[in-house]
């Protein structure tokens, strides 16, 4: 017993002396399971390449918890250096001008190279100012894809995965006739799929001011005839479960892996889960589009999270963070990260290198989100979203969509209400940003 204590004390003494010489950089993140290992390994590798700085990753709960932990810590005066924030928290972070250190500024001051053109524009666009200055550092990115159960499609007599919405509706009806009564097709993250991605993919505005990228005085626009038509169709299909609602988040994603729903919209980050659990021939395909919409398909937008650098730290610490970001951008490291974890590569070079190596011929599913993101040069409607209060706003939109699907409101009335209530929240956010 005594020996162990003495040994522990010795170990502690050693640990504290080695930490004394180094500058510790706190990194709060929200990665679980295999992704948690990735985070720890990255920190470990970085710590081994040099001995001036030590990156210390800490798991802080799911995305919303991590953001809240970061906010609370900032208010208490001990924010971490690096905070992982999901894409819908972007406006919240941007609005907090005094609380964050813009990444482009930090890189410049620390003398680290940062060429915005080296990164995939659909990814960095989400996290950059209108002038193209990177505010946060993209870490894990994904997009929405259509997951398909090829065994069941074949049984139902559908030869190809559907490419357009009409083809998809047709396939869903055939699937139902072939035994999938409770679910022709379904979707996780309903608002992300049916409003946010849908708008970008069809090159129609979700909100004014380039979906909020060009100012907080943005107004929602997703009650257009195209949006209403799409929701109306879904409402009609819900009646006999050709489309069956699967909730606001991804809690019910097992409906795909269990075989119940043979077509299911979900994040490309679903890859690991499908690979581990689906006992059938599966694939992922790009989201469908309406062929009568002129510019469709345009390009999809990203999901996932980026790393924000918190404000009020010492110059020396920022130097360490800058070094760490440069380390993360390294092409070979990005290539490996992408191929092992299924995250999208953030630099063009890493994408090219993976493609040239023939990786996608063996793993075509991993290229689907990249093809969607780079399908066309992004427009005002497809660069990304930046809406304040977005986390709660998604709930408000979901409430209205649920009311329509349950038959309590027409699709038009539901979308009008979603837009109106969302606009109120945007104005509230604008007011709080202005108090700073």
């Amino acid at each position, binding site marked *: 017993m005594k020996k162990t204590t003495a040994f522990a004390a010795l170990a502690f003494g050693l640990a504290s002396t080695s930490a004394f010489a180094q500058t510790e950089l706190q990194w709060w993140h929200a990665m679980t399971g295999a992704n948690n290992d990735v985070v720890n390994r990255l920190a470990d590798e970085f710590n081994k390449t040099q001995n001036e700085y030590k990156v210390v990753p800490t798991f802080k709960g799911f995305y919303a918890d991590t953001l809240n932990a970061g906010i609370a810590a900032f208010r208490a005066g001990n924010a971490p250096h690096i905070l992982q924030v999901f894409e819908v928290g972007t406006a919240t972070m941007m*609005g907090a001008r005094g609380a964050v250190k813009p990444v482009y500024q930090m890189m410049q001051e620390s003398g680290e190279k940062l060429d915005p053109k080296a990164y995939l524009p659909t990814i960095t666009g989400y996290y950059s100012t209108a002038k193209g200055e990177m505010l946060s550092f993209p870490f894990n990115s994904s997009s929405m894809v259509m997951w398909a159960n090829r065994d069941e499609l074949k049984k139902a007599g559908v030869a190809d995965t559907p490419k357009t919405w009409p083809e998809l509706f047709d396939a869903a009806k055939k699937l139902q006739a072939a035994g999938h009564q409770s679910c022709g097709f379904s979707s996780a993250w309903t608002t992300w799929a049916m409003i946010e991605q849908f708008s970008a993919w069809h090159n129609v505005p979700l909100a004014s001011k380039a979906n909020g990228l060009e100012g907080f005085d943005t107004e929602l626009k997703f009650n257009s005839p195209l949006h209403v038509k799409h929701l109306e169709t879904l409402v009609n299909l819900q009646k006999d479960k050709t489309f069956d609602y699967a909730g*606001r988040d991804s809690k019910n994603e097992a409906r795909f892996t269990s075989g119940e729903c043979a077509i299911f919209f979900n994040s490309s980050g679903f890859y690991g889960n499908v690979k581990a659990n689906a006992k059938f021939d599966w694939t992922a395909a790009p989201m469908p589009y309406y062929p009568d919409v002129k510019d469709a398909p345009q390009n999809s937008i990203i999901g996932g999270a980026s790393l924000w650098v918190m404000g009020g730290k010492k110059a020396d610490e920022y130097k360490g963070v800058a070094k760490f970001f440069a380390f993360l951008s390294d092409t070979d490291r990005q290539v490996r990260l992408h191929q092992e974890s299924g995250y999208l590569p953030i630099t063009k070079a890493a994408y090219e290198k993976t493609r040239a190596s023939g990786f996608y011929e063996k793993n075509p599913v991993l290229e689907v989100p990249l093809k969607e993101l780079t399908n066309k040069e992004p427009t005002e409607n497809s660069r990304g979203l930046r809406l304040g209060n977005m986390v*709660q706003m998604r*709930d408000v939109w979901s409430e209205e969509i649920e009311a329509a699907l*349950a038959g309590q409101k027409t699709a038009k009335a539901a979308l009008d209400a979603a837009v109106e209530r969302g606009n109120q929240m945007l104005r*509230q956010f604008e007011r709080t940003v202005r*108090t700073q």
Partner: protein
Amino acid sequence: MQKRSIFGGRLLPYALLAPQLAVTLVFFYWPASQAVWQSFLLEDAFGLGSDFVWFENYQALLSQPDYYQSAVVTLLFSLAVALLSLGVALLLASQADKSLRGATTYRTLLIWPYAVAPAVAGVLWIFIFQPSLGIIGQALRRNGVDWNPLLNAHHAMLLIVLAASWKQISYNFLFFLAGLQSIPKSVIEAAAIDGARPARRFWTIVFPLLSPTIFFLIVVNIVYVFFETLGIIDTMTGGGPGKATQTLVYKAFADGRLGGDLGGSAAQSVILMIIVIALTAVQFRYVERRVTY
């Protein structure tokens, strides 16, 4: 007078009270006063700047139709949970009060669900009732019930009522059992000799004598439904479908934590605080009257 002479000075009684007072001050009065102060501010999530806006947060809140809808939902939810959990607990307690073989085992088992955290209870129930994967959910669908808590407001409400009641039954059971055991056996036996059947004995003797316990439990249950069911709602329905299961406390949580609207959320907390103070005051008056009569 006598008490004062025991201490002989003022310092000692205050010193003895200090720890309890400190706990109350730090963990109740301080956060409560913070909430009141916050409810008059308009502030961003990071606390970088704030404006004193007087009653604007309250005005905004009370002009929202959503808020009244949440109040109605809360009322229905608390009534349903109180009735169901009290009714079932009373039934179970009156049965467990009989001399049965293994009565202690039943009692212990019945108390267990109280140890389950609300969020965990929510997850358990949602698994069982998941329409396409859960055991009961699947069974319902096979038997022609279009079970769909994701879109059907009544189904969602039923689900959270069941989960919330299930958790509270144990607590009520304990109090009812204690209440039943404190009723003098001689009174009941006398009634039995006079020829009153069990049902009559229950309604004319046991039930009236239990009424203080029942009233106490009603208040406690309502407070439970108001505040502690947050975890259940969060894991099971997230307030949906629509706003069908959004209670007042869930709305305060959603606006403050998910929406970053701290002022509005604080205003809601203050209103909730007033409701609970009122409930407690009523309870104390009533219980006091029962004691002195």
